[in-house]
C-alpha cells in the first residue's frame, strides 16, 4: 500500500536548477572514479578484490557505507518516527558486538585463509558441495536484494523528482553498471566512501534544522511526551519495537533474537560486508575494518533516529498517522517529508545527491559481491576451471552487466511486494542465520564434517522458510518483525542440530587440512597480525579499538536507558 501512496500524495520536492547542478556534479565524480579505477586493473583479483591493497580507513568506511543503503536510511527513519529511541537497538546491540567479534575473532580465519569469498572459505573448511550450495543461494539473494535497492531508488526518483519508474530504474542501473563495470570493486569501494560523506552531508544538516524547528532535544522530548509517547524516549525494554508485551521477554528477544542470531548472522557471514575487509592491504587492516566501521555505526542513529522522531512531531501528515487518524502517507515517507519540510534549496540538492548515493551504495555492494562469488565460486571452481586469468576478468565484467540487467527484472518483482522491509528480513533469515550456525560450529568444533556443512545449511534455510510460510498464512500469529526473529532463531537451531547429527555419522576432515580454519588447530601466532611498519602503533590495535567502541556503545545506552 505504502508504495502506491507515494505517488499520489504531494511529495514532490521543490527542486531548483541549482539543486540539479549539485546532483549532476556528484554523478560526474562517481563516473570519474570508475574511469580512474580502471587504470589500475590488470587482473581478476584487481577487479574483484581490489588486489588486496586498500588502507583500513577506506575499507572501514566502505564497510559501513555498504550497509548504509537507502533501504536502511528510509526504513530506520521510519522506525524512528514510529517507535522512537528503541530503534537504536538495531545500531547498538544489533550491530556493534557482532562487528567487533568479526574483527577480533573471525577475521584472522577469513583473511588468513586467503579465501577470496565466503563460499571459498566454506570449501576449505567443509567441501565443494557446501561451497556450491552457498554460492548459488548467495548469488540468488544478491540479485533479489539488488532489485529491491533499484526499485526503491526508482520510487524515490519518481516521488521526489517526478521521473517515471520505467525511466528511473534503468537509468539508475546504468549508472551503477558504468562505474562497477569500469572499475570493479575498487570503484565500488571508493564510491562507497564518497557516498558515506555525502550521506552524512544529508543527515547532519537535516538533524540540525529539524532540532532547531522543534526547540532542541528538550523541545522534542516535550512534544513527544505531550502526545503520550514517553515510552519512545527510552531504549529498554522496547516492547513497542518487538511487539512482545512482557518487558522481560522483550529484552530477551532484543538481546538474543536481534543482538545474537540476526546480528551475528548478518555481520559475520554476509559477503557483501566481509568482502570489504578482504580487500584490505594487511591482516591488521582487515581486522580493523569492521571495528573502524563500528564507530560511525554507533553514532549514526543520532542523525537517523532523531530526524525520524522529529518528522513524527513536525510533519502534519505523520502526526495525524501517529494519532491513529487517516493519512495518505506511511512512516516510510518520513525521511523525504522531513527533507521537504526543513531543507532550503541548495542543501536540498546535496540531500538528493546523498539519497541517490545511498541507493547506489546498496546496489553496488550487491553487484560487486555477486561478481566475485559468481566468477570465482561458480565459474572458476565449478563450471569452467583452469582458464587464464584474463578470461576470468572478462567473466567478472560480463557478470556485472548480467547482474545489473537481472536486477532491473527483480526490481519489478520487488515492486509486487507490499512491504519491502519484510521481504528483506525474510531473505536474511533464509540465508544468513543458517550460514552463521554452521560457521560458528565449524570454527570451534574440529570434528564437524564436510557433509555436515551443507546439510546444516540446507536444513536451516528450510526451517526459516517453514516459519515464514507459517507466519504469512497466519498459523503462527505474530507480527512480521517477531516472525523474522523466530525464523532466524529456528534456522540457527535447526542448522546446528542437523549439522551435529550428520557429523556423528560421517567422517571428519583430516586435521592437517583444517589448520588455519579451526580455532584449536590454529597456532596463536598465525591468528595474530604484524605490528610493524604501517601496522605499528597502539592506536592500530584491533583489541583496543574494539574495547573503545564497546565502551562508547555502553555510554550511549546510558544516555537513553
Amino acid at each position, binding site marked *: 500500500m505504502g508504495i502506491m501512496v507515494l505517488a499520489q500524495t504531494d511529495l514532490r520536492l521543490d527542486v531548483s536548477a*541549482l539543486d540539479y547542478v*549539485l546532483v549532476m*556534479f*556528484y554523478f560526474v*565524480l562517481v563516473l*570519474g*572514479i570508475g574511469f*580512474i579505477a580502471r*587504470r589500475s586493473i*590488470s*587482473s*581478476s*583479483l584487481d577487479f574483484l578484490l581490489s*588486489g*588486496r591493497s586498500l588502507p583500513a580507513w*577506506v575499507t572501514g568506511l566502505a564497510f559501513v557505507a555498504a550497509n548504509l543503503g537507502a533501504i536502511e536510511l528510509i526504513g530506520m527513519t521510519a522506525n524512528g518516527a514510529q517507535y522512537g529511541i528503541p530503534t537504536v537497538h538495531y545500531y547498538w546491540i544489533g550491530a556493534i558486538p557482532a562487528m567487533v567479534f568479526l574483527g577480533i575473532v573471525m577475521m584472522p580465519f577469513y583473511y588468513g585463509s*586467503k579465501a*577470496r569469498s565466503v563460499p571459498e572459505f566454506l570449501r576449505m573448511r567443509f567441501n565443494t558441495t557446501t561451497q556450491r550450495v552457498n554460492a548459488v543461494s548467495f548469488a540468488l539473494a544478491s540479485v533479489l536484494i539488488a532489485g529491491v535497492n533499484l526499485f526503491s531508488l526508482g520510487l524515490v526518483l519518481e516521488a521526489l523528482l517526478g521521473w517515471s519508474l520505467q525511466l528511473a530504474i534503468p537509468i539508475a542501473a546504468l549508472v551503477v553498471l558504468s562505474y562497477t563495470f569500469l572499475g570493479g570493486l575498487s570503484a565500488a569501494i*571508493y564510491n562507497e*566512501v*564518497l557516498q558515506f*560523506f*555525502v550521506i552524512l*552531508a544529508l543527515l*547532519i*544538516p537535516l538533524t*540540525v*534544522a*529539524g*532540532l*532547531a*524547528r*522543534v526547540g532542541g532535544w528538550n523541545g522534542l522530548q516535550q512534544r513527544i511526551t505531550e502526545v503520550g509517547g514517553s515510552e519512545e524516549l527510552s531504549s529498554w525494554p522496547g516492547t513497542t519495537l518487538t511487539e512482545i508485551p512482557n518487558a522481560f521477554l522483550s529484552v530477551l528477544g532484543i538481546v538474543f533474537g536481534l543482538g545474537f542470531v540476526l546480528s551475528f548472522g548478518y555481520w559475520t557471514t554476509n559477503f557483501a560486508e566481509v568482502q570489504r575487509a578482504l580487500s584490505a592491504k*594487511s*591482516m591488521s587492516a582487515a581486522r580493523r575494518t569492521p571495528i573502524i566501521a563500528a564507530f560511525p555505526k554507533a553514532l549514526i542513529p543520532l542523525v537517523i533516529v532523531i530526524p525520524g522522531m522529529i518528522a513524527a512531531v513536525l510533519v502534519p501528515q505523520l502526526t495525524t498517522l501517529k494519532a491513529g487518524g487517516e493519512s495518505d502517507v506511511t512512516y516510510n515517507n518520513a525521511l523525504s517529508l522531513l527533507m521537504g*519540510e*526543513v*531543507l*532550503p*534549496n*541548495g*542543501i536540498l540538492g*546535496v540531500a538528493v545527491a546523498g539519497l541517490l548515493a545511498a541507493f547506489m551504495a546498496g546496489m553496488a555492494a550487491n553487484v560487486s559481491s555477486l561478481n566475485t562469488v559468481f566468477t570465482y565460486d561458480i565459474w572458476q571452481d565449478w563450471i569452467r576451471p583452469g582458464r*587464464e*586469468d584474463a578470461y576470468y576478468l572478462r567473466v567478472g565484467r560480463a557478470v556485472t552487466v548480467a547482474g545489473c540487467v537481472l536486477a532491473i527484472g527483480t526490481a519489478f518483482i520487488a515492486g509486487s511486494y507490499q512491504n519491502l522491509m519484510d521481504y528483506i528480513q525474510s531473505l536474511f533469515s533464509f540465508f544468513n542465520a543458517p550460514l552463521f550456525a554452521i560457521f560458528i560450529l565449524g570454527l570451534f568444533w574440529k570434528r564437524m564434517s564436510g557433509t555436515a556443512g551443507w546439510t546444516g545449511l540446507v536444513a536451516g534455510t528450510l526451517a526459516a522458510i517453514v516459519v515464514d510460510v507459517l507466519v504469512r498464512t497466519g498459523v503462527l500469529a505474530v507480527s512480521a518483525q517477531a516472525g523474522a526473529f523466530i525464523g532466524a532463531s529456528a534456522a540457527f537451531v535447526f542448522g546446528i542440530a542437523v549439522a551435529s547429527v550428520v557429523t556423528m555419522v560421517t567422517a571428519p576432515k583430516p586435521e592437517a587440512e583444517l589448520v588455519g580454519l579451526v580455532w584449536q588447530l590454529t597456532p596463536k601466532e598465525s591468528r595474530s*597480525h*604484524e605490528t610493524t611498519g604501517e601496522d605499528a602503533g597502539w592506536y592500530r590495535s584491533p583489541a583496543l579499538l574494539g574495547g573503545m567502541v564497546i565502551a562508547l556503545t555502553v555510554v550511549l545506552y546510558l544516555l537513553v536507558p
Partner: protein
Amino acid sequence: MKASTLAALFDLRSVIALLFGVYGLVLTLLGALGTGPADLDKAGGVHLNLWTGIAMLAVAAGFVLWVWLRPPVVAAPSEPSDDTDARPGGH
C-alpha cells in the same frame, strides 16, 4: 614528478576534497547571498546553507591537509604479478 602528480590527483582523499570543496563553496555563497526569510523559517532560524557550506569547506580543507602531510605513495612498478593463481603472498 608526473606520475606522483597524477597519483595525488587520483587519490581518494583528493576526490572527497574536490566534492566537498565545490559543494561547500556553492552553499556558502548561496547562504551568504541568497538566504530569504522563507528559507530561514524552514530551517528554524538556522542559516543552514551557510553553516553547512562552511562545514563542508572545513572538511575539504582537512582532506587537502591530510594529502599534503601524507602524500599518496606511488605504487612501485607492480611486482611481476602474473602468478597464474593471482593470489598474493601476504602473511
